[in-house]
């Protein structure tokens, strides 16, 4: 609050500045707004602590209530490793649609954040990404983002069409959004104007600060976190002043500036995601923090695997309502299909090992132990047959194949032998199996489509948006 009061934040939106001024903030000629502590506290007192992000069916609804954590896909990249050519290319709407179906099939992905941009649609790309999500998954879609504010109403209208009516849309919103701040301590004009539209419509959204230590944030981790918190808070305060009680969530992602190139490094070896979640909860709102499975590394080898493991553990343990971005490589710019499957596999393991354990329902098997007794074995016991398939095994565990065991004459052979002896696959085979799984889902998984009249109405909205966008200066 000290930062907002004494340093201020740059607010380029005239409408937003008016709202701040009308509510007691000091607005300078330089568009810097200083927000007094009492304005912050008054505004945040109206922010709801819990709300729902709805899927198409209630079984996919997400309760942001502090007792559940959900993993989202990561967004929004710009490149795709093509599944046919295996070459890197610019992303398109069709990629969003395909990925939406893949996410629909993967059990631990709770909602879709379009992973890549629909770059074949120019100004209306965000609307087409939203559409691709809504029409290809039953899960919640994070489709609202910064765009020309003249077009933001189409997000609200699409959400209304899918939900059925305005009351349903407000009660169970099928779309949420994200507005990024511009560090340090600044906002995007279109972002703020879109945020006001979403706030008034009851579309949940986060303000997300991506404070990079050393370039647009202090070179100390807590300094970067605190600055990010101030940026996000200024946005949430604006939303509450404009539409008290609108659902908002808090997101600060601290990163590091590569000290040699100035590039973006997301892997900061500090418990910042947990801290960001705690900050959100201190403000009385849900958190979108909690780490990422995605790696800065462009490939999918050991480094990416290490990151996926740590990120998955963070996702399960951080206590953030929404956490654990999954799906992209290369510092959140590249969609690499097999990487998605490998990350999801890691997440399944982490959730299984580190997640809540249902002790009440746990089977101590005392009667079986008594039955087998000292020096017996359990192989023949019916209890074993009934329960051993309950243990989740890695998806690519395969029976051993003795004829492929190599000699012990070089490192590769040792690696192969050891891997096979443990029942695993060598890394090339794992990658191939992951890619095959992705292709299978791509070709075979098709969620139930929306009703025809809804699909038609969405198409009409998109066409109208495209026409309007063509006339925007």
């Amino acid at each position: 609050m000290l930062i907002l009061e004494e340093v201020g934040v740059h607010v380029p939106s005239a409408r937003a500045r008016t709202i701040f001024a009308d509510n007691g903030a000091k607005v300078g000629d330089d568009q810097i707004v200083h927000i007094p502590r009492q304005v912050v506290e008054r505004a945040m007192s109206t922010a709801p602590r819990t709300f729902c992000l709805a899927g198409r069916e209630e079984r996919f609804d997400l309760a942001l209530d502090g007792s559940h954590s959900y993993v989202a896909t990561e967004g929004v990249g710009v490149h795709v490793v093509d599944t046919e050519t295996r070459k890197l290319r610019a992303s398109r709407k069709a990629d969003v649609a395909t990925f939406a179906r893949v996410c629909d099939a993967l059990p631990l992905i709770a909602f879709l954040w379009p992973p890549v941009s629909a770059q074949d649609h120019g100004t209306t790309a965000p609307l087409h990404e939203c559409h691709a999500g809504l029409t290809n998954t039953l899960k919640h879609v994070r489709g609202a983002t910064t765009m020309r504010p003249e077009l933001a109403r189409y997000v609200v209208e699409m959400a209304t069409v899918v939900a059925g009516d305005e009351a349903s849309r407000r009660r169970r919103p099928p779309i949420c959004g994200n507005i990024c701040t511009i560090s340090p301590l600044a906002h995007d004009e279109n972002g703020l104007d879109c945020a006001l539209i979403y706030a008034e419509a009851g579309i949940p959204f986060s303000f997300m600060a991506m404070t990079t230590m050393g370039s647009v944030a202090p070179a100390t981790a807590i300094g970067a976190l605190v600055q990010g918190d101030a940026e996000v808070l200024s946005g949430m305060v604006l939303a509450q002043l404009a539409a008290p009680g609108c659902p908002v969530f808090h997101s600060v992602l601290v990163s590091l500036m590569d000290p040699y190139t100035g590039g973006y490094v997301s892997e900061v070896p500090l418990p910042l995601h947990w801290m960001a979640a705690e900050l959100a909860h201190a403000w009385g709102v849900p958190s979108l923090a909690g780490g990422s499975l995605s790696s800065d590394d462009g490939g999918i080898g050991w480094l990416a695997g290490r990151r996926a493991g740590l990120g998955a553990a963070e996702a399960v343990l951080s206590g953030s309502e929404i956490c654990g971005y999954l799906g992209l490589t290369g510092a959140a710019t590249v969609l690499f299909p097999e990487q998605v499957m490998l990350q999801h596999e890691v997440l399944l393991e982490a959730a299984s090992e580190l997640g809540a354990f249902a002790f009440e329902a746990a089977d101590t098997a005392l009667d079986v132990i008594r039955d087998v007794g000292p020096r017996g074995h359990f192989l023949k016991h019916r209890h074993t047959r009934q329960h051993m398939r309950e243990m989740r095994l890695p998806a690519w565990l395969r029976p051993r194949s003795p004829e492929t065991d190599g000699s012990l004459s070089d490192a590769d052979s040792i690696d192969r032998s050891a891997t096979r002896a443990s029942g695993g696959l060598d890394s090339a085979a794992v990658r191939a199996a992951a890619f095959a799984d992705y292709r299978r889902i791509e070709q075979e998984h098709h969620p139930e489509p929306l009703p025809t009249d809804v699909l038609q109405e969405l198409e009409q909205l998109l066409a109208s948006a495209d026409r309007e966008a063509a006339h925007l200066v």
Partner: protein
Amino acid sequence: MAEDLYSQMKQTVIDGEAELAAELAQKGLDAGLAAVDILDEGFVKGIEEVGDLFARGEFFLPELVQGAEAMKAAVAVLQPALDAAGGGRRTLGVAVAGTVAGDIHEIGKTIVCSMLSAAGFTVTDVGCDVPVETFIAKCKELKPDLLLLSALLTTTMPNQQKTIEALKAAGLRDSVKVMVGGAPTTRAWADEIGADGYAEDAIEAVVTAKGLMGAG
């Protein structure tokens, strides 16, 4: 006495002390030293050392940026005397850089400007959200060798293409080399829009710029 002063001047650049660099530049002029000697024997030696330390991985980007700022502060003091004597820092080329219209992200572009400056280019940073017309006006005014266009949003990337088209319409395309960059851009995009160069990061930007000037 001169050697001692030159050594202190060099150190201000290595230490990134912009205010002190300006003071020492003035002190040198007041002592009757030639502006071009102050520049070459003092401050340029400092920026060269900073560049070497960075290349060896001993200096980080902030140290490079601060060294460039110190250099800039010293040159600002020396410039009138340099102009009067008809001399100046040898430059690898003149560059104009900006973030395209509709886009207010500029940290990447700022880093590139600092690194180009440290590497010996004369750089004018025209800021962010720069309309196409402003880029054209700056090219007419400053006659740069290089025009660097940054975009961080897929929705603003097209303004890089529009700027190149506007250069052609103004009859300026052949007089300036255009480089593009920014997170959503790629080499393929640069080729598609007819840019002369592309860089994925600030290091590559310097290498590409030098290459375009035939100094690589």
